[in-house]
Structure formats: structure tokens, C-alpha cells
């Protein structure tokens, strides 16, 4: 799979490239069970998700990245529900990198239609993309898709195991299977209770009976109810569960320094001072091949991380230039120029005729605005790291990699390529818990560097950990962008025409260029216009377009991706329109959304939660934003107060409809987390460039919201949607516009530049 995945096909936001013409056979063919041959003594596996030992240890495989969003609880609950066991009676493992754990929901989400559209063409395209996910076997955690993807297959896995256990028990007792039932880890026949462990071996050898049925909603005992997290004890006792906690016999420690002009070469380096430092073993060049985009750099290998960091500081190095604009000012000039380039513009939606409306309208009734956002870093709490053990075993090169990855199968094939290993099955990926992901841990730079370091350790394992400074200055950033809007209100007090366009570089293009360099993404990158064209507002004349700027700074998926800025453009501009006509922004949105009762319901709910329309006193103000993303309808109201022009964020209320919710507490925590992530950006985050280098380096100049700034956050879930939405990302997009709109309500100041701290002062 190694070379094939790198060279043949890929999916992007809206793009599928190369050889999609697979027959249904490939799409429906089940994968081999990757747990076969990996079971312990006395352990049996039923399918890729369930293992049971004969002394009754039940293990559920959750093949998704646990980066805080609770998948080791909520996905395990799907299997446990059907298997009829409680969560305290099971263990959870991530399992190996395997095609059996593909994520088709994420790719369906990438189809260029908003998922609430269920027209024939939209459904067909989505089905094809889901099928591609299965064929490619992409095991990816992203796009807030984990639960949605697991919903059927993990319940079916639990159900199949339960039914075969019943069949095995019935056979053993000489009764018909219909006389067997299950109760809390036992098969019950008459007054006999047989623990699953006693039946596991016999049952695992049987094929699941036909005509199995999933439990009905009324039979659920776990789904829909908050469960204690399966990882809470480990995470409250400092257990060594993260990739940076990995320790192996004879393990060395290392750190990397890549050219701070991203992608630029390393002209030369002098390690003589570094090699004198106690604990430093050696300094090596880890520059990759010419077509790789990570640039030149070196690694310091040492006996501890501290020696490696000190050694890296002592290396004298001559870095070459990068091939992008050297300053943030020039970057924004490139974005401005993109608006004038018709070749790179893509109109994603055109209802009515905005050009005509604006041509005929009196100038003074047209509202125009321009918004700007900077690059942003992910700044996961745990800096990037991976541990690699590359050595020869019986004449074959083998690689073990311990890392927190959102994409284990891509990492596996990419790592085989980087290590020069023919057969990707000689690469074992050990996926650990992740100290934050937010989209950053789907990248392969960290593992490629680690493998290059491991080539210099004579077969010893090596942990490669980045300093915070390296992590901050070598991210795959959320891109900078400019949004331009114009609009006009109609006589009915609703927007009659809205034109919204955004300029940014292409995220999909950047991800593919560095991860799959030989592939060419086809079609426009829908992350550029997500959040602009896919909103449920009825606007008679509505045009949304994206303009692609060519800037080769590495950019990537940052919590909520294009929605993270497009939602702000849209929702704050609607606020400007409402103000221009003296309309209430809640009432205006409800009227514009009337075709979509789910949307109206969340807006009405949040208005009620926040006592919309009543003031909390002088100097306070509330702002609303509504935004659909990742299958979730979210409305948010934020309340601020201004004291001597210093803004405090006092309250956040969110009403969300994500359809069926597996674990309400976890979902609410995710919405809360998403909001804090967005507000953190507003409070002062900004990645800027000078001399081609990122100017920020650590939390002193790229901070995030802290406990003393954190508002009271209240989240309510309602369900009017059948489809299942995501939870990890949808809390982020509405947070910034709701805050900006609240600041306007409190102070009369309309801020159109991020971070908002450029123009208002926030309480520290």
C-alpha cells in the first residue's frame, strides 16, 4: 500500500483523483480482521472491534484518535450497548493501523453538497465518496465524523458478537438460540447464567447467525445517557498514556530543528559546540528528498530531551530562503490580488442575480465590509513527537512507531516509504492518546523526521520531541484570509441580496502537496467556501465565491477548517445588515431560516436561554451567531460587559441540534471546548511572518484563553434532526461572530480584524 497511496489517488475536500472506477464488489468486500494473529493466549476475536478472553476480559477496539473528544467512551458505548455489557466491565484499545477501520463518514462530508440536502445528485455523490473511503481504507479521525461513521458499524459489531455468543451457548446447552438471551456480560438460558468468557472461543469460531437485529431505541441502556469516561482515571492520575511518555529499552532522545523559513533549505551547519554538551550523542542532517516540502534541518540525538534541546541551541546553521512572501503585509497583498484574478475564482452558489440588484440599487443603501483573519497555530498542549524504532529483524527492516496520529493508515504507508520498507505491514503503528489534536495530528512531518533520526541510532529506539518553539514555528497553519461582503436590505426588512467572497490559499492543495506530492487535486477545494455557500438562509439574491491565492506557507486543517473564518464573515456581516435596517438580528435570522425548522429551533432556543431582548445593564451587550457545520445546527449567544473600555466575556449560551447523541455530557463538553478554542483566537492569537519566519514562538506571545477569562458556558442539546452531526468542531465557528456582535452591542464598535484584541482590550 505504501507507494500506491502516495502515488495513485487521493480525496480532498471536493476532489477525487485517479481511478475511482471501482465496482461495488470492492466497496462491499469486507476487510480481513486485523486482530487475527494478534490475540493473546486464551483470547478470541469476533470481528475487528471485539476481543474476549476465556477469563472474561472484554476488549473493545476504538480505532479513532482519542484527543479529548471522548471517542474511547462514546464509540466503546456503541459496541457495549449491543454486546450487553457496561463500560466499567470492558477495556478499550486503539488497535492496529488497518484498512478495516476506514472512515467513510468523513469523506461523505467532503462531498460538495451540504449534508442537509438530500436530493438525488447530492446523495449519489456522497455515496460514491463514502465508497472511496472504504476502498482506500483511510483510517482518519477528522471532520467531526468519528461517531457518525461508527454509528452503524460498531453497533453491528457488538450485535454480531452478542448473537454468536448466544448461538454458542445454545449449542452447548442443546437448546435453540431463541431460548438464549443476554444480561450484563452473560448469556442467560433458563436459570443458567454463562459468562461470555466461557463461550468466547467456541463463539469466535462460528459465523454470526443471519437475521440479526440491532436493539431498538427503547432498549438502549447506554446510548443517549452520559457515561463516565473510560480514560478519566488515567488522566486524573498522570498515567503515562501519551506518545511523549513512551519509554523503550535503550531509548535515546532527540529533537529536530527545521528551517524556520518553512520549506527552505539548510545551506550548512556546524555542530562542533553542540557535540561538546554532556549527554549529546550526535547531530545529524535529516533533510528529506528534493520533492518533500519540509525543508532542510538537523536533529540532535542525546541521552535526554534537555541535552537535545541545549545541543540544538548550540548548532550554528545557515538557513536558505523560502519561496513565499517574507512578511505578513506582503501575504495580505497576495490575498488582495487574488480577488482580481478571475482564473482562480470559484463561484460556489448563485441564487437570483446579485449583480443586477447591486447595479440598480442606490449607493447609500448598499452595505459593504471587509474582514481579515491571520494565520493561526494549533498549539496542541502536547508538542509534536514520535518514537521510532527502526532495525533489522531476520534480514528485514522493521519499524515500530509510537505516535498520536489522527491518520494511522496514512502514517503507516508514508512511514514505510520514508524508511525504505517495501511492505507496509513491516511498519507497526502504536497509536497513543493525544495531548490535543485539532487537526494538527493528521500530518506526517513528525513521523518522517522521527524515522530519519532513527536511521542514525544503530537500531536503538529514539523519541523525537519538538520544543514548543519548533512546534509553534513549524505548524501547518490555519491560513490567513480576507472576506469581502456587500448586501442590501429589502422592504420586508430581510436581506434582499448578499454577496460574500473570500480569498485564501487552498488547504487541501497544501495538505496534498506535502503528503501526496505526485497527486493533483481535481476541482476546487471546498474548504475554501465551506460556511459561505452551504448555509440554510433563504436570500433571494445570494452569491458565494472563493478566490484561491497561491502562497506556499504550509497550511492545514484547524478545528472547523474554512468554517473557522467564513462563519465570522457571514454572521457578523448579517449583524451589520440587521443594524443598518434597525432589525433585531434574532428575528431576522428566524425569518431567513423558516424553511429549516431545525435551524429555527436552535435560534429560538438560544434566544430563550439567553433572555434575548433583555439587557443585563449599562455597558453589557449580547451578540448572536447561527452556523451549520459538520452536520450540526448551532446557535450561540455571547454576552460581554465593557468597563472603562475593557471587555470581559461573561456568558456563552449555545443551543445545538446534532441529531442522535450517544453521550450528552461528552457532546456538551465538546461544544464548550470548541467555543473556548474560537474565543482563544479572538483574544489575541496571530501568527505573523517577518523575514520569512514565524514571529511567535511560545505561549508568551501566542497565548490562549485562561481560567480567569473563561465565561460561564451553558450548552443545551435538542433533537429535530435525524442525521447525526459532529461535535468536535461545530462549537468553534459561531464563537467569534457571536463575540464580535456582542462587542458591537455593548460598545458600538464593529471590529473587522482578527484577533479582535487588535481593536479592543480584553480583561486579562
Amino acid at each position, binding site marked *: 500500500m505504501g507507494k500506491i497511496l502516495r502515488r495513485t489517488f487521493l480525496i480532498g475536500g471536493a476532489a477525487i483523483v485517479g481511478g475511482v472506477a471501482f465496482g461495488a464488489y470492492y466497496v462491499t468486500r469486507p476487510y480481513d480482521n486485523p486482530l487475527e494473529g494478534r490475540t493473546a493466549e486464551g483470547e478470541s476475536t469476533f470481528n475487528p472491534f471485539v476481543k474476549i478472553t476465556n477469563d472474561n476480559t472484554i476488549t473493545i477496539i476504538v480505532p479513532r484518535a482519542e484527543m479529548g*473528544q471522548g471517542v474511547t467512551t462514546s464509540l466503546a458505548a456503541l459496541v457495549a450497548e449491543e454486546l450487553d455489557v457496561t463500560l466499567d466491565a470492558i477495556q478499550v484499545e486503539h488497535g492496529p493501523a488497518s484498512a478495516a477501520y476506514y472512515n467513510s463518514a468523513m469523506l461523505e462530508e467532503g462531498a460538495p453538497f451540504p449534508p442537509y440536502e438530500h436530493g438525488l445528485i447530492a446523495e449519489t455523490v456522497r455515496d460514491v465518496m463514502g465508497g472511496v473511503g472504504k476502498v482506500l481504507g483511510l483510517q482518519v479521525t477528522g471532520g467531526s465524523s468519528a461517531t457518525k461513521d461508527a454509528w452503524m458499524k460498531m453497533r453491528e459489531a457488538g450485535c454480531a458478537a452478542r448473537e454468536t455468543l448466544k448461538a454458542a451457548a445454545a449449542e452447548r446447552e442443546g437448546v435453540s438460540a431463541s431460548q438464549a438471551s443476554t444480561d450484563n456480560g452473560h448469556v442467560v438460558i433458563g436459570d443458567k447464567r454463562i459468562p461470555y468468557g466461557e463461550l468466547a472461543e467456541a463463539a469466535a469460531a462460528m459465523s454470526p447467525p443471519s437475521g440479526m437485529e440491532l436493539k431498538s431505541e427503547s432498549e438502549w441502556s447506554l446510548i443517549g445517557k452520559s457515561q463516565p469516561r473510560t480514560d*478519566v482515571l488515567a488522566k486524573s492520575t*498522570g498515567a*503515562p498514556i501519551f506518545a511523549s511518555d513512551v519509554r523503550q529499552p535503550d531509548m535515546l532522545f532527540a529533537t529536530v530543528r527545521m528551517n524556520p523559513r518553512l520549506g527552505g533549505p539548510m545551506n550548512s551547519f556546524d555542530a562542533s559546540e553542540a557535540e561538546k554538551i554532556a549527554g549529546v550523542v550526535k547531530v545529524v542532517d535529516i533533510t528529506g528528498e528534493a520533492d518533500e516540502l519540509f525543508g532542510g534541518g538537523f536533529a540532535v540525538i542525546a541521552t535526554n530531551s534537555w541535552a537535545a534541546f541545549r545541543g540544538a541551541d548550540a548548532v550554528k546553521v545557515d538557513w536558505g530562503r523560502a519561496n513565499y512572501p517574507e512578511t505578513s503585509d506582503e501575504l495580505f497583498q497576495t490575498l488582495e490580488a487574488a480577488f482580481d484574478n478571475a482564473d482562480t475564482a470559484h463561484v460556489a452558489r448563485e441564487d437570483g442575480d446579485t449583480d443586477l440588484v447591486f447595479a440598480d440599487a442606490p449607493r447609500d443603501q448598499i452595505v459593504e465590509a471587509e474582514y481579515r483573519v491571520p494565520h493561526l497555530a494549533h498549539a496542541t498542549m502536547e508538542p509534536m513527537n514520535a518514537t521510532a524504532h527502526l532495525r533489522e529483524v531476520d534480514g528485514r527492516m522493521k519499524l515500530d512507531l509510537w505516535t498520536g496520529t489522527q491518520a494511522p493508515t496514512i502514517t503507516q504507508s508514508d512511514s514505510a516509504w520514508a524508511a525504505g520498507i517495501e511492505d507496509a505491514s513491516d511498519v507497526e503503528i502504536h497509536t497513543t492518546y493525544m495531548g490535543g489534536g485539532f487537526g494538527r495530528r493528521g500530518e506526517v512531518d513528525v513521523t518522517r523526521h522521527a524515522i530519519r533520526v532513527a536511521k542514525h541510532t544503530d537500531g536503538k529506539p529514539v523519541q523525537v520531541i519538538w520544543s514548543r518553539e519548533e512546534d509553534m514555528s513549524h505548524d501547518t497553519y490555519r491560513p490567513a484570509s480576507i472576506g469581502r461582503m456587500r448586501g442590501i436590505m429589502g422592504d420586508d426588512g430581510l436581506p434582499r441580496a448578499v454577496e460574500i467572497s473570500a480569498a485564501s490559499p487552498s488547504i487541501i492543495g497544501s495538505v496534498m502537496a506535502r503528503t501526496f506530492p505526485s497527486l493533483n487535486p481535481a476541482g476546487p477545494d471546498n474548504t475554501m467556501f465551506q460556511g459561505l455557500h452551504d448555509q440554510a438562509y433563504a436570500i433571494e439574491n445570494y452569491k458565494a465565491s472563493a478566490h484561491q491565492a497561491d502562497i506556499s506557507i504550509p497550511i492545514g486543517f484547524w478545528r472547523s477548517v474554512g468554517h473557522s473564518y467564513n462563519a465570522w464573515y457571514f454572521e457578523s456581516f448579517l449583524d451589520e445588515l440587521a443594524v443598518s435596517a434597525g432589525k433585531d438580528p434574532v428575528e431576522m435570522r428566524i425569518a431567513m431560516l423558516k424553511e429549516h425548522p431545525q435551524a429555527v429551533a436552535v435560534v429560538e432556543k438560544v434566544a430563550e436561554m439567553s433572555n434575548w431582548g433583555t439587557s443585563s445593564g449599562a455597558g453589557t451587550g449580547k451578540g448572536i451567531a447561527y452556523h451549520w457545520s459538520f452536520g450540526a445546527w448551532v446557535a450561540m449567544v455571547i454576552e460581554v460587559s465593557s468597563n472603562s473600555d475593557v471587555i470581559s466575556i461573561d456568558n456563552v449560551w449555545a443551543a445545538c441540534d446534532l441529531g442522535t447523541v450517544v453521550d450528552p455530557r461528552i457532546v456538551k*463538553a465538546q461544544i464548550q471546548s470548541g467555543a473556548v478554542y474560537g474565543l482563544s483566537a479572538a483574544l489575541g492569537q496571530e501568527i505573523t511572518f517577518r523575514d520569512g519566519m514565524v514571529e511567535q514562538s511560545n*505561549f*508568551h506571545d501566542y497565548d*490562549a484563553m485562561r*481560567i480567569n477569562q473563561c465565561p460561564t458556558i451553558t450548552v443545551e442539546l435538542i433533537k429535530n434532526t435525524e442525521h447525526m452531526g459532529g461535535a468536535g468542531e461545530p462549537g468553534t465557528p459561531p464563537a467569534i461572530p457571536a463575540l464580535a456582535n456582542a462587542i458591537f452591542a455593548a460598545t458600538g464598535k464593529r471590529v473587522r480584524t482578527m484577533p479582535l484584541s487588535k481593536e479592543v482590550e480584553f480583561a486579562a
Partner: protein
Amino acid sequence: MQLTVNGNSLDIDAEPDMPLLWALRDIANIRGPKFGCGIAMCGACTVLVNGQPRRSCSLPIGDVDGEVTTVEGLADGDTLHAVQQAWIAEQVPQCGYCQSGQIMSAVALLEEVDNPSDEDIDNAMAGNLCRCGTYTQIRAAIKRAAGSKAGA
């Protein structure tokens, strides 16, 4: 170098300028304290020295002048510390990476103040960053732990 960590006396073979964090993690194999920033800005590495919260990433082992307690040293046998119990009851952690540091800062706060106000909590905890935004649950857990200590 001699250090006393969680009641055990350890012999650490390292230069006195090595930060305590790396002596613990890479030499003594005590991995509860985490590396987040290395410059005392995030709190992930927080430990107690003589009961006072210290950022171990910025404390050279040569300057450690007392007994070190890490998150591993909080439980009494099988019984978790009241703060850890409160963390579980409130289901605080998301990714969990910041939480050993948060717990150590909370333990130090509750040693100092029995019944901390919101302002006390802000002051004691503002140095501990959480990128997952679990502050609401952290605040609730500190109040719960204060309550349980009062009732004990």
C-alpha cells in the same frame, strides 16, 4: 544529585542546571509532570516542592530545596487524593495532557485556602493553560474537593 520525590530518595546522575522536569521524566522515569512550553507559561509541568507549586521545567535540580511531590505521589495507597476524586466526579479531562499540572496547582491552592472563592481559583489556576477548555469543570472540581475536605 540527591532528590526526594514522593517520599523516595533518588540519586540523579545529571548536571545541576538540568530542569527538574527532565530529571523526573527522562532520568527518574516519573512521567506525570508533562512538557508543554519549557518557559513556565503553561503549567503542564507543575509539581510541589515543600508543598509549593513550582514549574518544574524552569527549576534547575540544583535549586530544588525540599521534597518534591508529583501527581504520582498524591494518592494514599489505593485512595486517590480528594482533588483527584473530584476530578473524576466532575469528569474534567478531555485530552488530559494539562491535567496533572492542573491537579497539582489545585492541590496547592486547597492546602492554602480551605474554601477558595472564584477569585482565589482564578489567581491560583491562571498559570495552567488548558487548550481543550475544561475550565468550567476544573472550577467545579475544585469547589467539590473543598466541600469534601470540609465534610471530612
